[in-house]
């Protein structure tokens, strides 16, 4: 039963799994501490969505071994479509289920000390570094799902950019699921040291559109003093996949974190994206677009928390809901005491395409400081008939006019995706989700 509190994998299993991967002791210990927590902690409580019947814990297999891809040519077509020929493919990580199936990093970046590797290699070869960051932005004791994540970690990638290194071309990660009844506990860590710059683009894809699976993702982003991280993601997991995804960033003094998230899963999803502006002068911009269809229920929480002075935080969320799907958008701009001269802005808009669709935009501002600026705009509505009339009056048929308006509505993230292949895939996914 989905509501079962016990997880099907115990201490012995985890010890064996961890030592099998050659993990350092600290990691094994953290897994076991987290395992204990899973029994005690409650599920998270996303605003306005009941998830206690969702399946986050039932799966037949924790980890499968999949064949790696020997060469770029062997990649599945769905992955090939995402990667650019030439330069781009030099910095690429492809994960097939749980197996690091293709890893490549240019010599130039290696020489500069950049690390871009799967999480297990990182644990073995850069354990001391990883230890400083792993599960520090997201702590295992927050709720059962992150505890479960820490205990059962079985995939992911580690990005480390040393001081003063600016990476021009994006680092790209693709996680493909081509087996059913498995669980992916994927962990992404991006560390950008002082004055560094990195663009990271990731895709979650399912080989079949029905595939049953549990996906539990934690991404931790650290932009240290004056560093800049641009994080783009397109999630497109199958209908049978229940997803919990938590992407969190911490920005140091004058640090910048920008997110462009295309949340296109077809199954039930809880997504949480929090940016903590800790350093003075730090900047956070988060753009999220989502489409919900069929019967799926999705809950998206985006939050920017201001601690430092002169911090700026922007939240943009645009969601399309059709059929009898449900989408809840929670946006929280929080200015802590002491974060003077900060600015928190958010815009949340939901477009409903059918009578039975349910959509909700809840913008919240929590301000504990006087000397700040803040604002929000929110709306839930249908396609504007006057806009439709305008486009149709130029000869564009109704369906095409609707499509144009919807694509335009989701453009803030599409336009921000820095890789052509990924951008085009997102456009196609939107097209399919909106049309079929």
């Amino acid at each position, binding site marked *: 039963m989905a509501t079962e509190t016990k997880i099907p994998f115990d201490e012995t299993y985890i010890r064996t799994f961890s030592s099998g991967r050659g993990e350092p002791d600290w990691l094994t210990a953290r897994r076991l501490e987290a395992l204990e927590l899973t029994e005690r902690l409650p599920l998270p409580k996303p605003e306005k969505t009941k998830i206690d019947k969702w399946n986050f814990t039932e799966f037949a297999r924790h980890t499968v071994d999949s064949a790696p891809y020997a060469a770029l040519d062997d990649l599945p077509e769905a992955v090939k479509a995402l990667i650019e020929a030439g330069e781009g493919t030099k910095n690429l990580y492809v994960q097939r289920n749980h197996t690091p199936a293709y890893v490549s990093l240019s010599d130039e970046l290696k020489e500069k000390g950049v690390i871009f590797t799967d999480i297990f290699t990182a644990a073995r070869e850069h354990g001391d570094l990883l230890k400083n960051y792993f599960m520090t932005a997201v702590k295992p004791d927050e709720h059962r799902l992150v505890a479960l994540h820490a205990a059962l970690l079985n995939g992911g990638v580690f990005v480390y950019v040393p001081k003063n290194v600016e990476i021009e071309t994006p680092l790209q990660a693709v996680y493909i699921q081509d087996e059913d009844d498995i669980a992916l506990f994927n962990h992404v860590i991006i560390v950008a040291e002082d004055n560094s710059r990195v663009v990271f683009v990731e895709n979650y894809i399912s080989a079949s559109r029905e595939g049953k699976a549990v996906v539990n993702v934690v991404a931790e982003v650290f932009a240290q003093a004056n560093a800049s991280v641009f994080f783009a993601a397109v999630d497109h997991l199958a209908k049978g996949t229940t997803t919990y995804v938590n992407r969190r960033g911490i920005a140091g003094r004058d640090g910048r974190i920008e997110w462009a998230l295309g949340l296109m899963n077809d199954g039930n999803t809880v997504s949480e994206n929090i940016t903590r502006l800790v350093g003075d002068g730090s900047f956070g911009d988060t753009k999220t677009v989502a489409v919900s269809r069929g019967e799926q229920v999705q809950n998206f929480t985006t939050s920017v928390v201001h601690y430092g002075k002169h911090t700026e935080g922007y939240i943009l969320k645009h969601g399309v809901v059709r059929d009898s799907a449900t989408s809840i958008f929670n946006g929280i701009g929080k200015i802590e005491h002491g974060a003077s001269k900060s600015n928190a802005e958010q815009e949340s808009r939901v477009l409903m395409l059918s009578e039975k669709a349910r959509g909700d935009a809840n913008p919240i501002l929590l301000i504990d400081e006087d000397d700040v600026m803040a604002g929000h705009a929110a709306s839930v509505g249908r396609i504007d008939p006057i806009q439709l*009339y305008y*486009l149709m009056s*130029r000869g564009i048929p109704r369906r095409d006019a609707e499509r144009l308006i919807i694509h335009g509505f989701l453009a803030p993230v599409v336009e921000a995706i820095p890789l052509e292949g990924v951008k085009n895939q997102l456009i196609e996914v939107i097209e399919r989700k909106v049309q079929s």
Partner: protein
Amino acid sequence: MAVLTIRNLHVAVEGKEILKGVDLEVKGGEIHAIMGPNGTGKSTLASAIMGHPKYEVTEGSVTLDGQDVLEMEVDERARAGLFLAMQYPSEISGVTNADFLRAAINARLGEGNEISLMKFIRKLDEKMAFLEMNPDMAHRYLNEGFSGGEKKRNEILQLMMLEPKIAILDEIDSGLDIDALKIVAKGVNEMRSSEFGCLIITHYQRLLNYITPDYVHVMMQGRIVKSGGPELAQRLEAEGYDWIKKELGIEDETVGQEA
């Protein structure tokens, strides 16, 4: 040659009758101007012809070359050859001007006959240069953040790109500075041919100095109450509407009133 024929057109908005029997014929090669005080039904006429969802035709007919326009969806009307430059064009975020125009042109040409990207760009560049528009405008989102005058110019750009048979221009001159007015007029004059008919709704003789109309009509109380040649517009400019009201015994020219 195209003919737009409007017969005894009655139009209601939210249950209230606004147009009370309009008769008008616009042929290819002709330029008609409609003038009239505020709130007399000019935009209502334009909107009803184009098929605006709020306007309900309760009586009468509109045909284009004998085809029943009122039976057509808005997009079909456009593809049949009608165009309306709107008094208040919509803003569409996230859709670039260029993508929108290409979609509109391709909708006319139909599947399999799409315009090549090269040809489209050449045509767009040419028309934008003609209208002295900043090339960046092609890549901006449709009308979003455009100034009043830029929106009007963008309507004329669409007119020139889409080459309709009959165009209705609703206050295309409002909010334009004198240079912009000349450019917009230049655009319309460029379209003039025996294949192109135009109905210009305006409050000012000024525009008609640059685009000489063949016919001028005056609208009051939801009807065309007087028609004449270009000299009628000049007299309106000089004397206002009082003499017409007196001549016809109209006290209040707005649509709620009866003569």
